[in-house]
């Protein structure tokens, strides 16, 4: 058992707080994108999950994800209710107290479950949202976190995922696709079709996007799990990828629609951040810029796909987190450099890493999508997934929560 470092501990405490901020930031980001009659219900998804997921994580989730491994598949039950997790460091982070590692990971779990909510916004029945999210944490997120970070089979195989390309973004993207398929499209999408509506408050979305970017520094550099060179490196690769994501996105939209937009800037930054998440602590700075730039372009294209494929992923969780996470995981297989964190990718003469990354992408999508579909089926049978048609048309703020965001 190695010694606790005060510096690392202070650093990860701050990073945990930054990652916590990402969930309210996501609520703002998503809340601005929906119609005014659904802004509170959309915000409620993120805020209620801060409650539900945090408690479930401390009681059951943590031990399933990070308890002693059983067969590469799951953690055991030895840390139920965080039993035995305290001052001593865990094998995952040798210089911070185990309790801090559990707290840091708790914030990731909350955010990931909340990310999925962008898909089913504006039409899900609130009790169904709570039940699905609780089940999704236990049966999708916890296994994914264990497989990649908790000494499970994907991590042992050598799959690279620095801060959650697979665990956070591909998993939420696959869950979002499953939810869009299971719920079907919203009732009154109007002439635009393909799940496109006019966002009711873009300044709110931009503020949320800015705060997500800020929180992402805790997410990515905190994933170094110590306050050293690697954390500093991840901080800057993260920032530059977000910057390049803006450029990639607005360049293509400028070319194809004639004008750059503020929603394009916010979406492009997010796309760049998602894309660099798996590689932030594995790739050099210049490849990080490329990963972010291409991420902006890939996600722009992926968002448009939903019209072609006909699923109503309301706020583009698949297009941004699913597509961006997939691109980032593959790009990490190409650009990982031993000089940064001990592993070379394809570009540095290690084609084998590419195969591992491909396998992790396929396994993540298949596992997360299929288990999500099963959970959605069960929840539909138990409480009914969708709000009643008249409730949906009235707006979920009034019909599910008895509140209105804007008076007069």
């Amino acid at each position, binding site marked *: 058992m190695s010694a606790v470092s005060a510096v690392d501990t202070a650093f990860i405490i701050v990073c945990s707080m930054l990652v916590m901020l990402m969930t309210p930031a996501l609520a703002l980001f998503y809340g601005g994108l929906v119609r005014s009659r659904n802004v509170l219900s959309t915000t409620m998804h993120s805020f209620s999950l801060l409650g539900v997921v945090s408690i479930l994580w401390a009681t059951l989730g943590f031990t399933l994800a990070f308890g002693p491994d059983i067969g590469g598949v799951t953690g055991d039950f030895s840390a139920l209710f965080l039993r035995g997790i305290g001052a001593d460091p865990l094998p995952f982070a040798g210089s911070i107290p185990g309790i801090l590692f559990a707290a840091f990971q708790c914030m990731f779990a909350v955010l990931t479950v909340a990310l999925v909510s962008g898909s089913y916004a504006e039409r899900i029945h609130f009790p169904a949202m709570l039940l699905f999210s609780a089940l999704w944490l236990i049966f999708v997120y916890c296994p994914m976190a264990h497989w990649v970070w908790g000494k499970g089979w994907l991590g042992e195989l050598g799959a690279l995922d620095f801060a959650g390309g697979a665990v956070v973004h591909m998993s939420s993207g696959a869950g979002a696709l499953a939810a869009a398929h299971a719920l079907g499209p919203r009732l009154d999408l109007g002439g635009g079709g393909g799940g*496109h509506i*006019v966002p009711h408050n873009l300044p709110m979305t931009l503020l949320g996007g800015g705060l997500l970017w800020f929180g992402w520094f805790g997410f990515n550099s905190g994933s170094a799990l110590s306050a050293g060179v690697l954390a500093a490196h991840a901080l800057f690769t993260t920032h530059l990828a977000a910057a390049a994501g803006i450029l990639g996105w607005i360049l293509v939209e400028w070319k194809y629609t004639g004008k750059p937009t503020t929603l394009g800037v916010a979406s492009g930054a997010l796309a760049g951040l998602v894309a660099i998440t798996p590689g932030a602590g594995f790739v050099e700075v210049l490849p990080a810029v490329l990963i972010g730039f291409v991420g902006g372009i890939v996600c722009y294209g992926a968002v448009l796909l939903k019209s072609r494929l006909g699923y109503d992923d309301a706020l583009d969780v698949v297009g941004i987190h699913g597509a961006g996470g997939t691109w980032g995981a593959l790009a990490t297989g190409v650009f990982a450099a031993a000089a940064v964190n001990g592993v070379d990718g394809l570009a540095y003469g290690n084609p084998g890493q590419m195969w591992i990354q491909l396998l992790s992408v396929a396994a993540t999508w298949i596992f997360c999508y299929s288990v999500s579909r099963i959970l959605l089926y069960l929840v539909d049978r138990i409480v009914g997934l969708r709000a009643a048609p008249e409730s949906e048309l009235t707006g979920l703020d009034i019909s599910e929560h008895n509140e209105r965001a804007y008076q007069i």
Partner: protein
Amino acid sequence: MKKLEIIIRPSKLMAVKKALETLGIHGMSISEIRGYGRQRGHKEVYRGATLESQFVPKVQISSLVHDEAVQKVVDATLEAARTGELGDGKIFVLPVENVIRIRTGESGNDAL
């Protein structure tokens, strides 16, 4: 006494207000409205998806005017609000049966 309902481009509000003040019109209510006539809607683009906005933002000014002043007000408004493009708006002139000032109970022209 007539009521004028003047629907104009939001960008022309200050010009029209100034023109009416010059004519001694010292009261008006305005509302932000949305609608369409021959101009139809306009295009908006969100995340690469083009949406037709059915209704265009306009400002509606409502004001009460003595009968003899109506023509002057109409002329001044035409001058101030016209760009010559589709979407400049409309002026409705409506008869008013009576006006009552709530504070004093005065009615008719006294209440203007």
